[in-house]
């Protein structure tokens, strides 16, 4: 059951509560059929953006477009979006079937059509045998699937999900992650997925939009946003990294830096410096053996950089031994792996 999908767009959307703004001039275009994740720490405005899109909250300024039509004046029930809530928000007094059938009943579908579509939606989320149960008799993962089925049953062109995996335990979360990706693949709906979990964002999305304090920091493909973070916040929030201030960096490398900070990912450091690499000398601290890799810290020695600690993660190789803790070591990093950051 391939569904239609629609592009959507935020144009300079601002939401103020008193003096504080929950969202500040958000401009973002989402292509039809795209899986876009709004990522950011708690309180960064993700839910606010989603609520404005769904119609639960009015924007103070700006406009949201679904399928190139402004929707600011439309109530939620006329926006034709599907939504999965963090706590699932299943109707507790209705059976699974009635929960999933609800959007169809609101659209006055015939009984036969309702039965057919609910059946198909439950099959999509692998819950076919559960139609008569009440939500209270389901596990967390099953409730999540019912919520998903209810959101997609009426084939909305846009699907919104607000932290919908956070309530699940780790194993279930990974399972549902694959499930959501599979469903997006089959349905082709435009998905706006909200999370504060960067690994969820990186693994699921076509593109990630990172929010901080109500502002959009960067939008890009997962790999690009990981490899080329634009600001210190992005580099810090997505994955782990080492941030080196400009003076220290210039002192270490003898090269100028085009911004206030340099970022080096831990896995970009290695113990076999090549000609042309930037060389970092220091003392090894805190080695942790992780099977496939070894992680640890290098305390830089000497001069202006003295005392700064860099994390590293190197693949474990049987041939090349890693120095022991307390030993002096020289690590290398290719200039291409150094990313200049703005504030």
């Amino acid at each position, binding site marked *: 059951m391939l569904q239609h999908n629609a592009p959507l767009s935020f144009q300079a959307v601002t939401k103020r509560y008193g003096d504080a703004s929950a969202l500040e001039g958000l401009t973002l275009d989402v292509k039809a059929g795209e899986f876009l994740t709004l990522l950011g720490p708690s309180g960064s405005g993700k839910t606010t953006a989603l609520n404005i899109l769904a119609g*639960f909250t009015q924007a103070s300024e700006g406009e949201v477009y679904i399928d190139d039509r402004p929707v600011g004046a439309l*109530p*939620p029930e006329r926006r034709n979006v599907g*939504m999965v809530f963090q706590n699932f928000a*299943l109707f*507790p007094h209705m059976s699974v079937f009635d929960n999933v059938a609800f959007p169809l009943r609101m659209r006055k579908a015939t009984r036969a059509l309702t039965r057919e579509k609910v059946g198909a939606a439950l099959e999509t989320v692998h819950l076919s045998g559960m139609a008569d149960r009440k939500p209270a008799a389901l596990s967390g993962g099953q409730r999540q699937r019912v919520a998903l089925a209810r959101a997609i049953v009426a084939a909305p062109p846009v699907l919104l999900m607000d932290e919908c995996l956070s309530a699940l335990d780790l194993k279930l979360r990974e399972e549902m992650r694959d499930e959501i990706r599979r469903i997006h693949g089959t349905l082709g709906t435009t998905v706006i997925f909200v999370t504060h979990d960067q690994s969820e964002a990186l693994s699921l999305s076509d593109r990630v939009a990172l929010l901080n304090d109500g502002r959009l920091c960067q939008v890009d493909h997962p790999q690009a946003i990981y490899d080329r973070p634009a600001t210190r916040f992005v580099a810090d929030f997505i994955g782990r990294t080492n941030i080196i201030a400009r003076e220290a960096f210039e002192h270490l490398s003898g090269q100028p830096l085009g911004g206030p900070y340099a970022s080096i990912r831990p896995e970009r450091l290695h113990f076999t410096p090549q000609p042309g690499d930037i060389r970092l000398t220091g003392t090894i601290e805190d080695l942790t053996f992780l099977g496939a890799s070894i992680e640890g810290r290098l305390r830089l020695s000497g001069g202006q950089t003295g005392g700064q600690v860099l994390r590293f993660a190197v693949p474990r190789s049987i041939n090349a031994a890693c120095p022991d803790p307390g030993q002096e070591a020289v690590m290398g990093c290719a200039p291409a792996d150094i990313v200049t950051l703005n504030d």
Partner: protein
Amino acid sequence: MRLSTILFAMGVLLLFFPILVVVPMSFSADRFLGFPPRTWGLTWYRAYFSDPVWMAATFRSLRIALFASTIATLAGLLSVIGLGRMGPRWRAGLTGLFIAPAIVPNVIIALGVFILALTFGATDSVVTLTLAHAALALPFVVMIVGAAYRQVDPNLERAARVCGAGPVRAFMAATLPPILPAVVAAAIFAFFISFDELVVALFLMGGAETLPVRIWNDLRFEINPTIAAISAFFVVITTIAMAIAELLRLRTQKRLR
């Protein structure tokens, strides 16, 4: 036995003492009220059910209580919904205002209603009394229904909205079912607040007596065991109804968890 147990038993006994006296007295066949009765029978129940004055007062009270409870429940439900949609500061203030009549002594309210009714020439009216009773019951409805409403996940109504339901449909589909037992419980409480109410009725009802007014007037002239029969009869009915209301309230809490 521990002191707390003894105190608890004494407290319960104190609360139930009037009932323990009234119920045996109602089955007396004596001509005058006395405890313990010397002869037994259903004389006074028969006297109550066959007296057109007592019956008229009873049905008047039932009618008033039914209407007052319906009005209070609907108004209370709407108030709770309205309060729920306000900003936190307005909500706190207005909730206080809604609950306030529950703390004001009934005599004061009775006096107020009476003066108001005088200015509008609406004394001695079943309608005025019904409205006054509805106002007396409103705070309890707001408290009982409000407690349940605050526990309902606000996302339920939003979920219904994105599913395509308008605001009213969404309320009916998502919010009302989980709080319905509390609404029914509130209606039962409201019913008995009106059914029991004497003071306001004394002020407003000269000619047509409600049951409490009839009892009051009867007591002033002679104490005959009809009163005991009526009391015993309504103690049983009230107890059953209140038990149902309490069960419903507990069920709401379970349902919302």
